[in-house]
């Protein structure tokens, strides 16, 4: 049976007999064309609005859940206070970044600003319970940070959604709809991260500190910068300087300042720097894969990376990087088995790199970069 035969069977849209077509059958075809000419965009907008509003609902649930988790955790620390008001105020806390019209000298300004923000967060957390230990305080800080970001994502998305609705602009809404899957993915990662922060479990980003922490175990450590420790070790005639954030509190430390201090202030002539960090994988790559390269492997705003690059360039120190690949979700949720099991492979790469790129008598600085929550040394 041909296609024409099938179409002819669908009466009355395709009446047989050719010339006896009824006027209303034409209308059935023509009316939708005019309908879509005049109302097509409105219909599309209605569908986009519907889609975006569903995503906003999800974001709102996640934001409310994060707030509730933060309040519950604060209550578990100190029963004497009602932390809801303080936490709500904290969620609205903002940072105004320095003017970048003249970018020269902006890094120290950003560094200063981040320090002030960090100290403010710590002071707010301390107020909840002055007797709180460092690990608990760091957990609270991490939870608050996740809740603040979720709150911000929700508010920005809602802003553009309402703007699109108010101005009936398709362009606001379509752009929002296009980036929504990525935003939802990040929000879900943050939402899940809160569970790990509360329990003090190592997160995927902690793989760098975990590898260096193993090398530092049972060795005498000293604090070199804020929440950052360093120790010395010997390997095949080389002196190793091992550096990481001080665990098991949830902190990334200040590796940039620590490297500056180690090289500038203590005058140690480091011959090579090896940085180990978690890095975002591309879709299709396997979680826990290890790759080697050159350059400062460190994320964040860029202050720490700038400091390390500055010192390395001034002293002509080669910087080698070893990265452990993972997704955004893997990086801020409980460490996956594949990531944890990369520890031996990375350690082997580190020692191969030392053997290949340095000689006896050299001084090598090894930095484990990342949030060291649940990882001691």
């Amino acid at each position: 049976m041909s296609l024409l035969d099938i179409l002819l069977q669908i009466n009355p849209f395709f009446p047989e007999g050719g010339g006896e077509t009824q006027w209303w059958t034409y209308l059935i075809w023509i009316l939708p064309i005019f309908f879509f000419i005049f109302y097509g965009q409105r219909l599309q907008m209605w569908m986009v609005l519907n889609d975006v509003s569903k995503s906003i609902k999800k974001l709102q649930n996640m934001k409310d859940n994060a707030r509730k988790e933060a309040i519950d955790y604060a209550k578990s620390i100190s029963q004497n206070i009602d932390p809801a008001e303080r936490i709500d105020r904290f969620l609205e806390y903002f940072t105004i970044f320095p003017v970048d019209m003249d970018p020269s000298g902006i890094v120290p300004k950003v560094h200063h600003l981040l320090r002030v923000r960090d100290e403010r967060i710590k002071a707010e957390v301390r107020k909840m319970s002055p007797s709180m230990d460092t690990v608990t305080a760091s957990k609270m800080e991490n939870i608050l940070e996740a809740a603040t970001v979720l709150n911000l994502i929700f508010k920005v998305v809602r802003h553009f959604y309402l703007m699109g609705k108010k101005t009936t602009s398709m362009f606001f809404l379509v752009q929002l709809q296009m980036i929504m899957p990525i935003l939802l993915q990040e929000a879900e990662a943050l939402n899940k991260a809160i569970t790990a922060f509360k329990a003090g479990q190592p997160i995927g980003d902690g793989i760098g500190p975990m590898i260096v922490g193993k090398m530092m175990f049972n060795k005498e450590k000293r604090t070199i910068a804020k929440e950052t420790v360093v120790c010395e070790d010997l390997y095949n005639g080389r002196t190793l300087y091992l550096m990481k954030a001080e665990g098991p509190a949830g902190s990334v430390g200040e590796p940039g300042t620590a490297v500056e201090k180690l090289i500038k202030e203590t005058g140690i002539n480091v011959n090579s720097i090896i940085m180990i960090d978690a890095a975002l994988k591309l879709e299709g790559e396997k979680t826990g894969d290890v790759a080697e390269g050159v350059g400062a492997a460190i994320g964040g705003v860029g202050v720490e990376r700038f400091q390390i690059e500055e010192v390395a360039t001034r002293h002509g120190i080669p910087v080698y990087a070893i990265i452990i690949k993972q997704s955004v979700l893997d990086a801020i949720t409980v460490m996956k088995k594949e990531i944890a099991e990369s520890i031996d492979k990375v350690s082997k790469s580190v020692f191969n790199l030392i053997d290949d790129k340095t000689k006896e008598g050299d001084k090598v600085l090894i930095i484990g970069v990342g949030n060291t929550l649940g990882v001691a040394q």
Partner: protein
Amino acid sequence: MSKEEKEKPIVYTIEECQKCGLKTKRTFKIGDFVYMVGELCSKCKASTLITMIYAESVKV
């Protein structure tokens, strides 16, 4: 994976005996952290060290 089959992460703590090297896997307890002294070794009763804490996904 069907809609009913969802993955749930279970967090495990790996303890390694400092004497005989025996590795023990148990579920994570609040207060555990990597490179913390763990429970006594079930084989030689020497002290163990927590060397890993990780999540494994199980289908529920």
